[in-house]
């Protein structure tokens, strides 16, 4: 009946692990080479009974593991020391201890994945992933509670009758002749299978995309986010002209703000008068603000000798004749309005502080260009009698 079919091998099932070990020993010592054992779980001692040499798969694991370690170190060296060096936690760019966990992970990942990959490729003989034992009653029973052994027809000692008798002599529960499937095809190249793979990848990638880019950004409630409000860079819906606020009436003055009448004039014909007396407190305030805002260019003592000298249009000294002849209002005007390269400081320094700085600049100018009378006054104040 089956004469037109090609025999793959003869299978026998056994009841206990001891019997299958015994059978495997007998089969291997009878000189059969092309045979295999199928058990529902790994049976201890099977390797020795079948006289199997240690698997060479370990070398794949070792080589790929070492490759993984080297790759991880190279990758992190390139990223952290060459391509985008970044100081993290004050550690060196090549911080080996911090790289060890990643190296370890990549070693394990590459070693295991390539071991499994190599196992599938070698043992399943890709692309031929079809096996005559698939979909047989034998495979069903050895996936359940039986222990099976197949002697393959490709063995030189194979003979249908003698093998069947031999297996029966080992007290097999039953024997079965396994045939090759009628049509030899590569199932993984079948259009159906490829379509199935494509469908799976579309579903998986679509699902991943949806979950990572849509689902996690879905808001649980939106009545706070979607209310009418002013958002930067977008026209507002509060008013018809797209603005979020009304422009104030012409001439409106903000609280605490006095408009400067000479704004934008380079050479004002008239300036304000200094409203502050040079008291100790006022000069102290001026000194503090001077050191914050003025020293970076004009220098600690207004000599124009800051570190910017030589790298920039040189900041001018404030001890020049011209600067000393400025009225207080003119210096105030320059701070408020800016001059040449110097920008306006009106937004950083308040009005009162600007006047305090003016007072402090006056102090500096007087100290630098002191007259004899000043010295005498100073010595008097210090209680010294050395008049000259």
């Amino acid at each position, binding site marked *: 009946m089956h004469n037109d079919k090609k025999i793959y091998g003869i299978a026998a099932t056994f009841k206990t692990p*001891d019997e299958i*070990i015994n059978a495997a020993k007998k089969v291997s010592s009878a000189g059969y080479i092309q045979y295999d054992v199928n058990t529902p779980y790994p049976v*201890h*001692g099977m*390797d*020795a009974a079948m006289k199997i040499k*240690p698997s060479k798969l*370990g070398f794949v694991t*070792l080589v790929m593991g070492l490759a993984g370690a080297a790759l991880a170190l190279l990758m992190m060296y390139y990223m952290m020391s060459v391509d985008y060096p970044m100081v993290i*936690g*004050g*550690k060196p760019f090549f911080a080996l*201890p*911090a790289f*060890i*966990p990643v190296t370890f992970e990549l070693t394990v990942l590459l070693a295991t994945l390539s071991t499994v990959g190599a196992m599938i490729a070698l043992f399943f003989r890709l692309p031929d992933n079809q096996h005559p034992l698939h979909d047989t009653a034998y495979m069903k029973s050895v996936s359940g509670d039986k222990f099976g052994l197949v002697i393959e027809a490709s063995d030189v000692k194979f003979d249908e009758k003698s093998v069947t008798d031999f297996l029966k002599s080992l007290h097999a529960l039953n024997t079965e002749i396994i045939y090759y499937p009628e049509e030899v095809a590569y199932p993984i190249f079948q259009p159906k299978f490829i379509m199935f793979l494509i469908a799976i990848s579309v579903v998986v990638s679509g699902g991943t995309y949806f979950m990572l880019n849509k689902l996690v950004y879905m808001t649980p409630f939106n009545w706070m986010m979607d209310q009418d409000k002013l958002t930067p860079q977008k026209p507002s819906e509060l008013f018809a002209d797209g603005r979020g606020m009304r422009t104030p009436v012409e001439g409106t003055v903000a609280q605490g703000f006095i408009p400067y009448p000479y704004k934008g004039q380079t050479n004002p014909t008239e300036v304000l008068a200094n409203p502050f007396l040079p008291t100790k407190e006022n000069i102290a305030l001026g000194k503090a603000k001077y050191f914050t805002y003025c020293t970076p260019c004009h220098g600690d003592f207004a000599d124009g000798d800051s570190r910017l000298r030589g790298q920039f249009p040189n900041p001018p000294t404030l001890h020049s004749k011209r600067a000393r002849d400025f009225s207080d209002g003119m210096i105030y005007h320059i701070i408020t309005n800016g001059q040449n390269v110097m920008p306006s400081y009106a937004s950083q320094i308040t009005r009162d502080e600007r006047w305090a700085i003016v007072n402090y600049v006056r102090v500096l100018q007087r100290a630098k260009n002191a007259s004899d009378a000043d010295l005498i006054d100073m010595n008097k104040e210090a209680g010294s009698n050395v008049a000259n």
Partner: protein
Amino acid sequence: MSQTDFHYQKKELPASLSRLGIIIFVVGTVLSLLAFFVDQERAIFNYLVTYMMIVSIGLGSLFLIGLEYIAGADWSTPIRRIPEFFAMLLPVLLVLVIPLLVFNHDLFHWAHKEAVADDKILQGKAPYLNVTFFIVRTFVFIGLWSLFYWMMVRNSRKQDETKDQTLTKKNIRLGAIFIPVFALSITFTAIDFMMSLEPHWFSTIYGVYYFAGTVVASLAAITIAVLKLKEKGYFSPWMTDDHLFSLGALMFAFINFWAYIAFSQFMLIWYADLPEETFWYLIRWEGGWVFISILLMIVHFFVPYFALLTQPSKMNPKRLKFIAIWLLFAHLLDMFWLIMPNMGSMKNGYVFSWIDLVFPIAGTGLVILVFAFAAKKANLIPIGDPKLKRGIDFHL
């Protein structure tokens, strides 16, 4: 499976073993006593190194016995008597610990009243780190270990005569109780005897670190004993390469575990870079210690890792024995590295002294002596154990 018919004939260990133990022990003890008179502080620190080594072998062995029972392991059943013999070191600790308690002033900075008086941190730790509580803890832990040793080993030996299977069940229960007791007591022992040498320093993984080394040391000692007995024919004809492979594989696993824990401890401290933690490693990077630190990495991980990586290396008795002896030394070096830099005069670098060599000699002698003494009274194989047959027929 090989259906070995097994008849056990009690075969005494040769008397020369005890004699060897006595000679080594006496020589070591004499030299150690001499060391005490030469440099008391260095001697007591070295004594602590050897003491912790003996704790490792004894306690690790009892842990492996408990583990075998609760995991239902077959392969180690025929050689279970070896860890049982080593575990007899535990009751001996009751005596061995006394010098450490007597000389606690030399060992522990926190035992100095005047040092605690002007140290806020030590005052905060004083409720735990004080001499009275320390002594109480120590004896409670050693007492618990001895108790579990006595109960489990008594059941195991009784089974040789009665063949009563319920004794195995009793030991499974005892093992299940012992493992958590072991986990806590070994952690506190490591903290008490080693971490508290530097009372300002702390590492939450310290107990696990010591545990990892403990299992390596006890497995190494068991492997050496098993291989020696196998060589002399005590375990023939049933012992196969597969038994040796299992011992080797377990050692391999635990040197990896040790490296994993050691690195975890180091990396977190290195990365956080807090002065209160890093100084412990900085001391071990000072002067000669830097070489010992690097040596420890090589000796305790890299060499045994590659030596045990392949299957034949775990099955070849000669190679396995070499690696086991190597690992015992590695653990000794580990203990030395943990303990000795805390000694006041050694903080700026390691200085060699003959004193460092004599205490392990006495320790080796003691271990041999205790092993021979324990082996005299019992069968070398648990002949009454219901798992014995499967253990003897064990195949990978």
